[in-house]
């Protein structure tokens, strides 16, 4: 299946782009992150990065389905 991935803030800057379309064999957030690391090796996805499926925070074990958008949420700085 094809999953859209969004990057924000410093991650978008590192990758030089904010959106990817990845073709996946697995079906979890972790699988998306693994595929993204291959597609964009310069990305530093450390433990401080959180993930969202569509508009909700999600663990790496959370399932993703065709049509979902997975977002990488680097440390936030609102306020």
């Amino acid at each position, binding site marked *: 299946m094809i999953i859209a991935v969004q990057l924000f803030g410093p991650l978008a800057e590192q990758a030089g782009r904010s959106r990817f379309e990845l073709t996946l064999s697995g079906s979890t957030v972790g699988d998306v992150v693994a595929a993204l690391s291959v597609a964009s090796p310069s990305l530093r996805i450390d433990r401080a990065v959180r993930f969202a499926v569509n508009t909700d925070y999600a663990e790496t074990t959370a399932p993703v389905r065709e049509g979902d958008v997975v977002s990488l949420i680097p440390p*936030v700085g*609102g306020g």
Partner: protein
Amino acid sequence: MFKITADPLSIDEAYAAVRAPDCGAVAIFVGTVRNHHDGKNVTRISYSAFKEMAEKEFARIADEARARWKIGAVYIAHRTGVLEIGDASVVIAVSSAHRAEAFEACRHAIEVLKKMAPIWKEEFTESGKAWISG
């Protein structure tokens, strides 16, 4: 009302959004761009956000506050784009019948927003720029 906007924030809008006949107290927090941070002179700040998710987080923060405190309405707005020194970046307003609840819920809302809302801050100083979190 919960919003991410590129327009200047209005304190009066926040107040008007939460005031209610059965509420005798309104607590408002305004975060503004400060001219210093960690000993450096800040010249401006650029905020970006995952708008749809941030607005949903604001609504969730309000729901959580309403479950914990006896409060009336909650307003949360955060600005995006390049802000100058003194510009308001975030406005939170909470109404309640009695003042303790409005203060506590408002304080809680900004603490949670800072941890959870998908918003990013790039700080420009004399020596360059940096992503700031926390």
